[in-house]
């Protein structure tokens, strides 16, 4: 049993950040703190609890400049479970369409008394731009192909739940590595925690330069299948591609689609993840997505726990810091 009065009485002293901009910046200790706290929230929910008002009276805003179902809703659920208010801001109906800059928009929202801005934007670095110009917490919910730290954390949490560890595992990220923020956040988080990471996909979407960062790269999915513990199947990001990186979806699915036949050539303990939204029949066949090795829906549940952890650590941690000073 998780006793909320002790488990969440104070933010761990190892946590000192005001923003979560990416997993590349975090130490393995900070990653572990985040995962441990998320696990406690997960356990708390597993025990049937719905609300834990650690952030009551606080207000967060979802500042989303790109479409999102999962992440936006997940942050909203996480905030409400912690007793915080969540305001949804949509770029399409905002003053941005009247020419207001993203910094001005965010500053105006902040002036209304906001504790955290959760930002998704098509351009890498926009959360960093906001973090430099705002006093409140900034959480990166995906900046173009750069990072998506809470997605990385929830993937890693799902892996840790299944295997009890990250160190020593071999994790393959398959698909559109070039345009995937999920890939980048996974790479940094997994490597810091001691996993071996393989990026796999067509040569137009997988740079050999990954080797310079001690990440293995491969164009041949079949050759790596027998030695991976985890397969994370990434979506082809057609909307980010300026030129077509492969001749047809059919050809892609033939070379990289995860189906039952390919699954039969993996370790029996294989864990299949997909950050969603998934394209059934492209990167993953329906019987694999819905099969016993898939943890796709576990990922979604973990997503809420991870976002509760992030909101609590950043907002409550900030309150502690201001009390201390």
């Amino acid at each position: 049993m998780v006793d909320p009065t002790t488990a969440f009485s104070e933010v761990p002293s190892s946590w000192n950040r005001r923003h979560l901009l990416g997993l590349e910046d975090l130490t393995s200790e900070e990653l572990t703190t985040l995962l441990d706290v998320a696990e406690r929230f997960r356990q708390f929910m597993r025990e049937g609890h719905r609300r834990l008002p650690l952030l009551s009276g606080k207000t967060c805003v979802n500042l989303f400049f790109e479409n999102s179902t999962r992440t936006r809703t997940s942050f909203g659920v996480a905030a409400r479970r912690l007793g915080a208010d969540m305001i949804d801001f949509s770029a399409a109906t905002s003053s941005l369409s009247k020419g207001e800059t993203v910094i001005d928009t965010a500053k105006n929202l902040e002036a209304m008394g906001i504790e955290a801005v959760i930002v998704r934007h098509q351009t890498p670095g926009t959360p960093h731009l906001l973090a430099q110009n705002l006093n409140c917490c900034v959480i990166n919910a995906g900046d173009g192909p750069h990072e998506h730290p809470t997605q990385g954390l929830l993937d890693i949490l799902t892996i840790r739940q299944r295997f009890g560890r990250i160190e020593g595992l071999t994790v393959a990220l398959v698909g559109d590595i070039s345009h995937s923020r999920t890939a980048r956040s996974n790479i940094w988080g997994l490597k810091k925690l001691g996993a071996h990471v393989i990026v796999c996909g067509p040569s137009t979407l997988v740079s050999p330069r990954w080797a310079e960062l001690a990440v293995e790269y491969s164009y041949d999915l079949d050759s790596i299948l027998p030695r991976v513990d985890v397969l994370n199947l990434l979506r082809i990001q057609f909307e980010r591609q300026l030129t077509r990186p492969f001749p047809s979806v059919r050809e892609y699915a033939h070379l990289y689609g995860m189906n039952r036949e390919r699954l039969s050539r993996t370790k029996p303990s294989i864990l299949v993840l997909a950050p969603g939204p998934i394209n059934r029949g492209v990167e993953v066949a329906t019987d694999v997505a819905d099969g016993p090795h898939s943890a796709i829906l576990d990922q979604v549940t973990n997503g809420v726990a991870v976002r509760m952890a992030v909101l609590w650590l950043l907002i409550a941690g900030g309150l502690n810091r201001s009390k201390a000073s």
Partner: protein
Amino acid sequence: MGRLLIENGRVIDPSQKLDRVMNILVEDGRIAAYDVAPSGAEERIDASRKIVVPGLIDMHVHLREPGHEEDETIATGTAAALAGGFTSVACCPNTDPPIDTQAAVEFVRQKAAQADHCNVFVIACVSKNREGKELAEIGLLCEAGAVAFSDDGAPISDAELIRRAFEYCLMFDKPILSHAEIRELTTGGVIHEGLISLILGLQGIPAAAEDVMVARDIALAEATGGRLHVMHVSTWGSVQAIRRAKSRGVRVTAEVTPHHFTLTDECLRGFDSNFKTNPPLRSREHVQACIEALVDGTIDVIATDHAPHAKEKKMQELDRAPFGAIGLETALGLVITQLIEPGYLSWSSAIEKMTINPARILRLNKGTLPIGADADITIIDPEVWWTVDAANFRSKSTNSPFLGWKLKGCADTVIVGGRVKYRRQG
């Protein structure tokens, strides 16, 4: 106009292979005599422990006027030039409207005369409206005073048009200044394509986009006998191509900017748009190739590509923020700190690339100090350390990638046409 005696300075004039301590007498806007003693009738400038060079020339600046006065004006840009030690600048035609008519050339020259800071030479468009479709009236533009032709920032993809431009400019003995970029390879790009773009998930600008265009331009210059000047060289591949072309006698010259011989794409790690330039800051091996090309003379000129942008334009998402960095007021300090102090260039070869070399390319009677020459003179304090501070810029914009840097050496006194136009305070 009176007499001015510059005393006891170390005079470095690479055009005359001159490097010794001496006095220079200026009279009626011209160099009147060397080694004369003071007579008591002239204004005197003590240049002891200072370096006296022909007035520096920056052959690649953007003064933004007409059309983008929120970024810079001819008056503020030329004031910045003086503070940076430049007595002459050549300004690019990517204004609004672009400099593709005689009237536009005359407008810039008139504004520059009114500002009365430094000399301004006009680079005019190769093509009408910088559209890359038909040639601008190059002959008439020459008569109005244009010194070179460029569609800077809008590279001409039509190989036939640029071939005609090389041929046509032959009869006016004018160079084509090429911003070498294959547009199809740079769409959406904001940063050098390499390890850093991979990590940051930013759309890359491959070095090949420059290499391919430089190779094309060299081939067309060679085929026509025209004069090609490659602007802001940034890649190893361009350097190789230019070096080979020069060795077989192609009429090609090249420039590099201080930011390209100093900074790498690592600077974009913090997503600061002041480091977003075109061409982009490259990786270390490209920077090293540019420095080696300065050393062996493959690159003839140091030019700033001074590209002011108002703060509100730069304070945007990285893909929306415009390309460019200001450079006039930091160039000299960077040349001294980054090239001369580490021993890459001697004083003489560095000054050559900022005086006589650009003057020869643009056919200016500048950048040299023989008796009778225009008295455009820059007196440099080579020892002073100073900090780059946005509050001190004369430029209207502050988009410098060197804010907070400590640099050694700067312009102390700047003389244009025999008149002291700038004196460093403090």
